[in-house]
């Protein structure tokens, strides 16, 4: 089960090479996102789009807030 982390955990994991993924739509991502995040909207998330990610490195997902 994915681990829930806070922003301190996000900062620590990014330093260790984790990949940050915003799963909101493209428009919201383009308006503002966390530096370094890539955008894979939940609606388009599948085996093919997930190939943008490196399976050897941890992934951190986020959206707007507690949704």
């Amino acid at each position, binding site marked *: 089960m994915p681990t*829930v982390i806070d922003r301190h955990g996000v900062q620590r994991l990014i330093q260790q090479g984790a990949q940050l993924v915003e799963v909101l739509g493209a428009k919201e991502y383009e308006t503002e996102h*966390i530096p370094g995040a890539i955008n894979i909207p939940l609606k388009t998330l599948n085996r093919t789009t997930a190939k943008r990610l490196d399976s050897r490195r*941890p992934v951190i997902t*986020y959206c707007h807030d507690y949704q």
Partner: protein
Amino acid sequence: MSARAAARLESLGFTVHRYQAGKVDWFAAGLPREGKDAGIPRVADIAAREVPTARSEEKVGEVRKRLGTGDVEPLIVVDADRVVLGLVASELLTTDPQSHIEDVMDPAPVTFRPNLRVGEMPTYFKKEGVQHALVTTSDGVLVGLVHRHSE
């Protein structure tokens, strides 16, 4: 939404963590932003960082001596982690020097989040009816102070 995405990615073989509080929490902490709106000024960009602070257990007389007579900024009461506990209007520092700061502080001062847009400040100042507001992270940690005249 991030929970479903995390579960889906995990099913695809990834090691996944979920930042449940999301980008609202990140921006509210005053951390960096990217994107087409990232350059819009926020209160964290204009907040005064060098502000007088004190601990709640200090005595009014000690603080007044430490600050001198020229300081007219409100005094911000913080704990050891710089979490804001209250605010003391500068004129209240003339009260009984033996009083403790916690006895004269306002424990619920108006606060803004660091990511509030500067252009939105006038509305909030008007709504709250104050001349200054503290800027704190979502954890309550002091970032700085903004004045109504800095709108």
